[in-house]
């Protein structure tokens, strides 16, 4: 790894540690979900009903770490902040290794300038 690449990786890890800003700022300004990303109950509050098809599909997948939160729905802010950092680090490892693996498999050694 070149020293420049090392610096960039460090920058990415710092981003993971700063990522809780992505829950703290919305909380401070009482902002909810992104537009179009409401859960069924939130949507019911907005339009007065839960669309039938949406109801059927919404629970299709139970993600292991839903909403980047290890503590479930009632988690304290501290748990949410830690969860966010851990999720960021997990993302770095999984996404980094997957893309590294994919590109290692397809890029040929003789290629490029």
């Amino acid at each position, binding site marked *: 790894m070149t020293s420049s690449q090392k610096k960039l990786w460090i920058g990415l890890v710092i981003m993971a540690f700063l990522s809780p800003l992505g829950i703290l700022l919305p909380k401070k300004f009482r902002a909810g979900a992104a537009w179009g990303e409401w859960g069924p109950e939130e949507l019911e509050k907005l339009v007065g009903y839960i669309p039938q098809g949406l109801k059927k599909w919404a629970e299709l997948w139970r993600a292991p770490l839903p909403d980047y939160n290890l503590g479930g729905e009632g988690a304290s802010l501290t748990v949410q902040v830690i969860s966010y950092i851990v999720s960021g680090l997990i993302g770095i490892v999984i996404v*980094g290794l997957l893309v590294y693996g994919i590109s290692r498999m397809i890029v040929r050694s003789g290629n490029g300038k």
Partner: protein
Amino acid sequence: MHIPDGYLSPLTYGPFWGAALVFWSVALKKMKEKLSFKHIPYMAMGAVFSFLIMMFNIPIPGGTTGHAVGAGIIALLLGPWTAVIAVSVSLIIQAIVFGDGGLTAIGANCFNMAVVMPFVSYGVFQWLRGKAVGGARLYVAAFLSGYIGLAVAAIVTGFEFGIQPLIAAGPDGRPLYAPYPLAVAVPVMALEHLLFFGLIEGLITALLLKYFVGHEPGLVYGLSRKEV
């Protein structure tokens, strides 16, 4: 912009899955032709950057949030086809591991953020920079490439939401999936991203391009050639 499960009818998410598969297979072929070993760590970093930047939710008036995507800067640095794969991997992990975006909607979400966005960004950048390889013009082009790329992706997403009431309604006449019509979904998605998140995307794109032009000038794909 991560469409959850249940917001798109099968008639919508099916074709988008098909489109995503086509773009992924072409993208892998293009990467094989154009990229060399030295690019591999940067591809991994690009995908990781996109994953992380999407965690920075920014609150805006109206009580909602949004975020930058990073697909524009990846397209400028590594080419739009590489950005297709890098951002797709990040979106797929967000959906599977973190439930951010639906599984049925992976095709549509990848189409919006990992196909439309990098290609629009790259096109805008090349068109606006002309022959510039430095100076204000280059960075204005980079800013606008991120800004416009994100906005167009958001508008396409709004369109996908907005056609749902036209596609499927129950016996009571109520929409079965995303309930807001085109006249709401498209302007909301467009304005949010034109007024707020696009500015952040543009800033990130311009600043990171400046960093790489200064530190690793040989790397920047969008400066070494004009074509995709």
